[in-house]
């Protein structure tokens, strides 16, 4: 009940933002909500499945590129480009996940990182679509021909609605039998296998779902900035997503949302303070880790198998 109340207050507050915010503030909050959407999808596989994916920015970036490339080729409508974004990101997650999920632990972290970096370099070499410099979108996507997304307030509510949907899906999946198998695989893989369940397929499906939702976040982000660039896929951003999930607490569906909002607003605040904001943010991160006495405890169990 308390958790439900917290969710209600949070989303009501986000819904009230356009009433008083100027355009710059709206852009910042939209950015935070889009990152929250991506962080929620990562939080699902990380918290529920114990899968520390270090390439989540790549799936989000692929979603953004799908919108950018489609628009360049004349496909401007979100009803087409958003599903394509999700499919492209999901497909990338399927192929890389099928290989990465054969490994566990540190290997998994490094391999997802490497595949993310591979996608980064491929976008860098797409000379037809801006290459290193990125690609400026002609305009925001249309929705069934209407130019709704152009208005910052409408865009705000679209992002908010999709974020709410993502949190809902993540919660429902976590409580479903599918989510229970994932959690069981995280807590004690050996016991799960003894029960006759091979977690590989479950993990792969979860990985693809998370990738597709990150792709959706990418499609929204491309529309927010009206620009896509290889920097969207950089491993620094993947690391930031992990920070968001862990800072907010990967155990609940709302944790990553709070973490993302917190990290984006904190970064923005520090950036106003000094251009060298990372010199403060870095040590804060180290302190966060050292102070919490181990994040594994928060994941709700040991991950040995």
């Amino acid at each position, binding site marked *: 009940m308390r958790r439900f109340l917290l969710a209600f207050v949070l989303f009501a507050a986000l819904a009230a933002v356009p009433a008083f915010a100027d355009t710059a503030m709206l852009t910042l909050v939209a950015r935070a909500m889009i990152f929250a959407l991506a962080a929620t999808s990562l939080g699902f596989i990380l918290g529920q499945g114990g899968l520390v994916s270090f390439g989540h920015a790549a799936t989000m970036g692929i979603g953004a590129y799908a919108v950018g490339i489609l628009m360049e080729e004349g496909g401007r409508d979100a009803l087409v480009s958003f599903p394509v974004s999700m499919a492209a990101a999901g497909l990338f997650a399927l192929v890389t996940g099928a290989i990465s999920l054969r490994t566990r632990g540190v*290997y998994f972290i490094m391999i997802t990182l490497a595949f993310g970096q591979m996608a980064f370099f491929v976008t860098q070499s797409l000379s037809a679509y801006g290459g290193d410099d990125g690609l400026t979108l002609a305009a925001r996507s249309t929705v069934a021909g209407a130019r709704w997304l152009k208005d910052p307030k409408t865009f705000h509510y679209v992002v908010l609605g999709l974020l709410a949907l993502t949190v809902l899906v993540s919660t429902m999946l976590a409580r479903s039998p599918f989510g229970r198998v994932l959690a069981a695989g995280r807590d004690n893989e050996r016991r799960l296998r003894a029960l006759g369940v091979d977690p590989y397929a479950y993990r792969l499906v979860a990985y693809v779902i998370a990738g597709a939702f990150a792709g959706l976040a990418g499609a929204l982000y491309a529309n927010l900035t009206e620009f896509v660039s290889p920097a969207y896929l950089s491993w620094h951003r993947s690391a930031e997503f992990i920070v968001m999930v862990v800072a907010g607490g990967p155990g609940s569906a709302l944790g990553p949302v709070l973490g993302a909002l917190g990290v984006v607003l904190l970064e923005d605040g520090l950036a106003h303070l000094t251009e*060298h904001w990372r*010199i403060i943010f870095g040590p804060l*991160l180290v302190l966060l880790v050292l102070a919490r006495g181990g994040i594994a405890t928060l994941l709700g169990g040991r991950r040995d198998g």
Partner: protein
Amino acid sequence: MTLTLFLVQMLNGLQLGILLFLVAAGLTLVFGVMDVINLAHGVQYMLGAYLMVTATALTGSFWLGLPLALAAALVLGLLLERLVIRQLYGRDHLDQVLATFGIILFVSEAVRMVWGSAPLAIPMPQALSGSVRLMDGLNYPVYRLVLIGAGLGVAGLLYVLVTRTRAGMLLRAGATNAPMVSALGVDINALFARIFAFGAMLAAFAGAMAGPILSVEPGMGDNLLILAFVVIVIGGIGSMRGAFVAALLVGLIDTLGRSFLTDILKLVMSASAASAAGPALASMSVYVLMAAILFFRPRGLFPAPA
């Protein structure tokens, strides 16, 4: 695609492989012995190059600057181990990833504040600035040959150190069973600190040696770090021999792919399609190699005994 060009690219690939090995060696040592995944290893490579910039400027000599930069890197490595890494032993890998990412942000920004964002250069030592004729029409810079030689020398030294000395014995014992080594009266914390600082120094050595041929800039450690991860995943985490073989493999494939893949593709497809697909495929090549090797050997080429 002449033979000369091929040989030059082979040497370039070898040189990238050597640099990768120097970075991957420290990474795999720290992981193998302390079970710590250290993302900050890339900034230690970068820091080595920057320390070298200052040390050569201070002393006015490459040869005096190098030991000075390495000593500074060693001290900074000890300091970092003491302040942060020591708290991460036995922690979840996720904790280690986050904390060392925090270190990356801090060190990169500190480097920007001290040395600025613009690329810097380390002057090439006078004695090594020429090039030698390896065969007809093939001139290769002396410095790059020396870099390859120095890297091979370090690899040999590491082999002797690990297999033939008391320090190496402790290291191998620590990798196998650290609590047991501790129970036998070895100061395990001091051992870990030394190994970490030694790894930092190897990365700094790679950075300092790469300085004269690459530009010294804040992001220089990032790409090498990821490639070093690919190397130790292919080689088998914790295996020094695996790191060596995989580093040379990755260095050669990456370099040769970037130079020749477009030309090879032109044999089977139209020129414009080849020049579009070539660079993209070349940048994927090492990751495809990694995926292929993991598919058949999920624990790498030389898996460390569990």
